[in-house]
C-alpha cells in the first residue's frame, strides 16, 4: 500500500478537496478512530483512518501502491493551499513526545499497560493477552515506574534521553526512574521529555527531581509533569 499521513488543523479540508464524496469526511460521518473506504479523485480506491500520532487532527490514507504517486499529486497541492508542508520523523517525534504518545523507546519490555498509562484501553470484561499477568502482585505495586512528562526547572536548560531520574537528596545508584525521549517543544518553547519514575506524577508533584547524566551533561533539575503536555483534553484530535 501507498500510505500518507495528513495531519494538522486543516487536514480535513485538504482531504475534502481530494475525495470524490466530501460528505464522508464530516466529523459526524467519520469520528476519531474511524476507518472508511472511499475513492479519491481520479477513481483511486482509498482507505482512510482517522488516527493521530502527532496529536493533531489527523488522517492516514492508504491506496494501492501504483496509485501512490497520483495520491501525492492530489494531496500536496491542496496542502500547499493551506500553507502545509511535508514533515518527517524528527517533527513527528517532537509532536508525539509533546502529546505523550509512547513508542518502542518507552515500551521496552519491562512496561505494562498501566505503567504506560494505557490501562483504560483494555476491556476488563473481555479476555486478552496479559490479562492474568496484569493482576500479579508485582504488577500492582504503587511504586512501579509510570510514564511521566519531564520539563527542566530552568526552561532555558536542556537534558538528555538516557538520564537517570533521582530524588534531589539521593543522586546515586539506579535512581527512581529514567528518561526515554527528549525534544525541544516548539509548542511550549522549551525542552520536554518522557520517561518513567516510581509512582508516577502523583508521587513527585511539587518535588524537584534530578536528571543525572554524569558522563555527558551532568545533573539537571527537572519537574515531573503529566505526559500529556500538549492539548491534554484532545480537542485538536477530536476536532
Amino acid at each position, binding site marked *: *500500500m501507498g500510505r500518507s499521513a495528513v495531519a494538522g488543523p486543516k487536514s480535513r479540508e485538504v482531504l475534502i478537496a481530494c475525495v470524490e464524496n466530501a460528505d464522508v469526511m464530516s466529523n459526524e460521518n467519520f469520528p476519531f478512530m474511524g476507518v472508511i473506504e472511499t475513492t479519491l479523485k*481520479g*477513481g*483511486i480506491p482509498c482507505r482512510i483512518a482517522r488516527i493521530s500520532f502527532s496529536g493533531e487532527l489527523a488522517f492516514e490514507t492508504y491506496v*494501492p*501502491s*501504483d*496509485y*501512490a*504517486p*497520483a495520491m501525492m499529486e492530489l494531496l500536496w497541492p491542496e496542502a500547499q493551499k493551506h500553507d502545509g508542508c511535508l514533515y518527517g520523523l524528527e517533527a513527528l517525534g517532537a509532536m508525539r513526545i509533546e502529546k505523550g504518545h509512547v513508542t518502542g523507546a518507552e515500551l521496552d519490555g519491562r512496561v505494562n499497560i498501566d505503567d504506560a498509562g494505557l490501562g483504560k484501553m483494555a476491556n476488563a470484561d473481555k479476555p486478552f493477552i496479559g490479562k492474568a499477568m496484569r493482576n500479579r502482585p508485582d504488577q500492582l505495586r504503587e511504586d512501579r515506574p509510570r510514564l511521566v512528562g519531564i520539563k527542566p526547572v530552568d526552561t532555558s536548560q536542556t537534558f538528555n534521553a538516557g538520564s537517570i531520574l533521582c530524588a534531589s537528596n539521593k543522586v546515586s545508584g539506579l535512581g527512581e526512574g529514567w528518561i526515554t525521549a527528549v525534544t525541544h517543544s516548539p509548542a511550549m518553547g522549551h525542552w520536554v521529555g518522557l520517561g518513567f519514575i516510581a509512582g508516577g506524577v502523583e508521587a513527585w508533584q511539587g518535588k524537584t527531581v534530578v536528571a543525572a547524566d554524569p558522563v555527558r551533561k551532568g545533573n539537571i533539575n527537572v519537574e515531573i509533569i503529566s505526559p500529556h503536555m500538549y492539548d491534554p483534553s484532545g480537542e485538536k484530535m477530536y476536532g
Partner: protein
Amino acid sequence: MVDRISALAGHNAPGHQGNPGQTGVILREPADLVLHQVAAWQDSIDEVGKSLARLIGAKSVAGPCSSITGSKGAMLRIEPMKWWLVGVAAPEFDAEKAVTLDLSHSRTRVCVSGDDACEFLNRHLPLDLREASFPVGAVASSATHHVGVTLWRSQDGYELFMPRGFALSLWEGLVESAHQFGVEIA
C-alpha cells in the same frame, strides 16, 4: 481513472544495453498487473481449485509447483494450499472455503526471455531452470539477493514476481548483470 505508476517507472525505458550487436536477454514488465491470491482449506481445496479453473477458462486445475493457462488467465499453485491468479480477479468465496487477497500492487512482474534467459537467471536463482526440470508451466518460490521471489515459466518466458518495495533494486541488478549477454528492455 488515473494511470498506475510502476515501481520501475523511469528506469525501464525501452532500448538495448550492454554487449553491442548481441541480444541474449529480453526484459519486459507487463503493464498493470492483475494478481490475486486464493488460499483454500484442506477440505475445500478440490472444489475451490475447480472453481478457479472455470474462472480462467481452463479444463484442469494447477497442481503443486505448476500452472495452468486458460483462455482468460492463468492459475499458479504457489504453495500447497494457495493459488495465484494472473490476469483475472478472484471471486469472493465463503471464508469457510477460501480467502482471497489482491496482490496486484504488491508485486512487480518482469518477463525474462531470449536465448540466454536460462543461463542469465541461473546467476540470480538457485534453481535448475533447464527444460527437463523447469518446463513451461513450472512454478517455484525462490530468492534472489535474499529477497523472496516467485518464478513462473509461461509461454512468454521466465516470469519473475518480485515484492514491489525491492523491485527497483532487483531490477537494477538484473539489467546490469544482463549487459554481458546484451539486453533489450522491451
